[in-house]
């Protein structure tokens, strides 16, 4: 029978949760790396027991960890993230130029075919790649050296590269997203990059439809249809059917189209999930009700999913990498909150239960579907 393993990163350590295919009962292991911020963990699709983790603190900076047994034991690997060449500057909050400075790894994306190859999205925004299992890291600097790079400006959470999507039909085609620069794509494995933000509108900007400067929070891709992308932007839920060349707004009847994560059901590429948040000023669920919204029509028409989720006095947030799906049938959906709950739905969002209630604030959740 298949199993699901959840890799949960929190403000104070990592947790590994496993269940059989029923997804009723969960074994919870952790905390691992207690006291460290674990921004993200992710397993290799080519070898699910190879897991990478990003570990950091304000005291000691960045440490990278690798497991070869599904998270039971770990080995620290390379933590030197040196920008290629003279790093130069980007725009700071006050409009002045600011030197590019490495802060932390936000997101890890293992190669689809090689367990030793893994991409890292970092703050200040850049994309790195390791081809030796995380021992050494090289910047794919064509991204940061795009002519727009000096105009990139951090969002409230920093100038972070948080989304990396590798096209399964053509692994040289990679889409990344940076808050608050926007979305970029390479079609040649990372040498050349171009902004793909046509159709995005950000009223917070003086020029709403500018080429870069959009605060993209997350993008999701279903491997069966890699040119269709769904985006949760600062405000607005967006859809592209041409690999990001153009975007259309699909917020429809959402109570708020501000939010952070977005995911796609593994078996139904038109079924998508978001967690609406009141506004960019408040960062709490509308009306104190924690509701996942599901669209079965690829956007525009949304329904609230509430069964098993708190419907009063709930003011947690769900961060941009804190939602995920498994690939069982029916498809499971999972998310973690700033209040330390990790919720699971084994039936595509109809019913939810909390696997845990009292973890540290959850930074990321990834699901692995195992044989």
């Amino acid at each position, binding site marked *: 029978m298949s199993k699901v393993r959840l890799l949960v990163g929190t403000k104070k350590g990592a947790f590994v949760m496993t269940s059989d295919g029923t997804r009723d009962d969960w074994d919870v292991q952790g905390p691992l790396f207690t*006291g*460290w911020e674990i921004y993200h963990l992710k397993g290799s699709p080519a070898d699910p027991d190879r897991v990478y983790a990003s570990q950091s*603190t*304000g*005291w*000691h*900076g*960045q*440490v990278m960890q690798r497991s070869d047994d599904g998270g039971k034991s770990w080995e*620290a690997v390379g*933590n*030197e993230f*040196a920008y290629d060449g003279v790093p130069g500057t980007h725009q700071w909050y006050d409009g002045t130029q600011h030197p590019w400075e490495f802060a932390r790894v936000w997101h890890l994306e293992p190669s689809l075919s090689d367990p030793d190859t893994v991409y890292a999205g970092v703050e200040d925004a850049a994309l790195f790649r390791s081809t030796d299992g995380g021992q050494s890291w090289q910047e794919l600097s064509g991204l940061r050296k795009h002519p727009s790079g000096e105009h990139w400006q951090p969002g409230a959470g920093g100038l972070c590269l948080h989304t990396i999507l590798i096209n399964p039909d053509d692994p040289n085609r990679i889409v990344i997203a940076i808050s608050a620069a926007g979305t970029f794509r390479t079609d040649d494995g990372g040498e050349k990059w171009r902004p793909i933000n046509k159709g995005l509108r950000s009223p917070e900007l003086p020029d709403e439809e500018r080429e870069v400067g959009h605060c993209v929070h997350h993008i999701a891709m279903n491997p069966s249809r890699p040119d269709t992308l769904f985006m949760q932007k600062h405000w607005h839920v967006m859809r592209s059917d041409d690999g990001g060349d153009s975007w259309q707004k699909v917020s429809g009847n959402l109570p708020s189209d501000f939010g952070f994560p977005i995911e796609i059901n593994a078996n139904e590429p038109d079924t998508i999930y978001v967690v609406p948040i009141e506004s960019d000023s408040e960062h709490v669920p509308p009306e104190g009700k924690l509701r996942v919204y599901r669209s079965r029509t690829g956007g525009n028409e949304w329904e609230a999913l509430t069964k098993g989720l708190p419907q009063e006095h709930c003011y947690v947030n769900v961060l941009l990498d804190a939602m995920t799906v498994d690939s069982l049938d029916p498809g499971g959906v999972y998310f973690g909150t700033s209040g330390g709950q990790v919720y699971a739905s084994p039936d595509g969002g109809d019913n939810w239960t909390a696997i845990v209630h009292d973890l540290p604030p959850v930074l990321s959740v990834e699901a692995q579907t195992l044989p």
Partner: protein
Amino acid sequence: MIRVVLPHHLRALAGVDGEVSLDAAEPLTQRTVLDALEEKYPVLRGTIRDHGTAKRRDFIRFFACGRDITLEPADDPLPDEVASGAEVFRVVAAMAGG
């Protein structure tokens, strides 16, 4: 042989309990102690001072003989008591909340 005390997270990372004993090159300075520490425990590279520039991380301090020597030049000699092993060289994670 000099004695180094690490903060909690670095002891866990290096897999050590209590003090660390090191042979460091003469003359004994902050730089030579940290070089020896990182040589013996490569996992600590980047966690006390930055890769490349060797700049001390902001929330790290160095104490010896009851004094904060953090801001003294990295190539200044350390006190004789540290060199003789009578006193420890202490790497401290500054008080910070959250």
